[in-house]
């Protein structure tokens, strides 16, 4: 098998394709990482402004407990990324093992496939295939969340930390209810009544948070894909090697058999005088 020119051609072609994918994923990761740095700066500004506002104008009232909880699960839109979606699924099962079954909004086609038969899923959305699609996905998700009667929800998503993909649960409503210390003695000026400004500020906070969550998930996905692909290519290489060895052994066996037949026939032909 190793000597087969067609197999060699195919192998080279796969490696060329893998190289292209790796290059494309790297370009996407570089771009999204740049966006993420800017988004973090923006998010810190929103957090400071919200903390400043809440310190003087009060935190929002606690949400009324309702029958269940809602989880937004963010997985991958495309395949070839190993256990990326399983991480999210496992985190959900661990978080939701007690109490009323949660309702689920699943983002990412590959993750949604895992919940096809699951009646906890109330909606599924296509995830971003490119960084440029993130704003559209966020607006679709915002529409779904606005339709849901749940007053509190959490997001389960992957992120990339210390060269590892790890799963995280983000609870936006917990930060919103925290009283944060700010270095000011007087309240900031506001043009609107606090009750009117608070939801607007919170909306800005949520949108920025969603961008951050989608950026980190996308970065993790783009790191995971080349890694998974390299693993698959290694497995193909190993399998190829194993088949090569098997082919050699079979060839040797057949040569031995042929030799035995030749020797037997020679013994029969050359009779002793």
């Amino acid at each position, binding site marked *: 098998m190793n000597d087969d020119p067609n197999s060699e051609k195919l192998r080279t072609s796969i490696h060329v394709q893998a190289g292209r*994918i790796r290059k494309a994923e790297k370009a996407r990761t570089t771009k999204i990482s740049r966006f993420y740095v800017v988004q973090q700066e923006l998010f810190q500004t929103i957090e400071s402004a919200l903390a400043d506002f809440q310190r003087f104008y009060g935190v929002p009232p606690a949400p009324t407990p309702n029958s269940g909880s809602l989880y937004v699960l963010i997985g991958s839109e495309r395949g070839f990324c190993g256990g990326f979606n399983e991480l999210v699924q496992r985190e959900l099962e661990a978080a939701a093992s007690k109490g009323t079954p949660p309702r689920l909004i699943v983002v990412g086609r590959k993750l949604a496939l895992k919940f096809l038969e699951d009646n906890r899923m109330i909606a599924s959305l296509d995830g971003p295939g490119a960084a440029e699609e993130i704003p559209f996905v966020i607006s679709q998700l915002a529409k779904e969340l606005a339709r849901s009667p749940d007053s509190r929800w959490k997001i389960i998503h992957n992120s990339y930390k210390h060269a590892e993909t790890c799963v995280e649960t983000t609870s936006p409503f917990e930060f919103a209810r925290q009283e944060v210390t700010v270095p000011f003695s007087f309240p900031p000026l506001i043009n*609107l009544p606090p009750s009117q400004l608070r939801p607007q500020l919170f909306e800005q906070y949520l949108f920025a948070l969603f961008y951050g969550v989608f950026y980190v998930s996308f970065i993790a996905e783009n790191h995971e894909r080349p890694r998974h692909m390299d693993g698959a290519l290694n497995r193909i290489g190993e399998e190829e090697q194993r088949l090569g060895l098997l082919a050699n052994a079979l060839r040797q066996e057949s040569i031995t058999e042929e030799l035995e037949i030749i020797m037997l026939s020679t013994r029969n032909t050359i009779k002793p005088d």
Partner: protein
Amino acid sequence: MKTFRLHLMSMTRSELIPDVVRFTGHDAAGSFGLLANAFRRVTVLVFGLAHFQDAAGKLEYLALPGGLLYFVGNELRITTTHFIRSSSLDEISAALDRELRQEEEELHTIKQSLHRLDEEILRRMFELKGRGRHE
């Protein structure tokens, strides 16, 4: 002339204008202005145009789909999903068209290339798997 810093932040870029003399924006309560050393202020800007003037007297327009405004420490921070800056209103409209078209084209190209790469690698893998089975 007293100035303040204007820090514009969107989800993809960040720009700093060091010497702004005055800023005019709109929130749900109406139009308001800001000068250097103004008191701390928090508000949410509505969809539309804001404008600011630098120390050289140059007036610039800022188109944005809403966003947060936080004036603190003589720095005006504006966070939004997207913004366009221009010194002329006609240019803003043209830039908006251009950017939208460009984004759409880029997205189309990216989607096509992703699709092609995924399909190609899958095809090759199946091909190799098929060959392995035959041999």
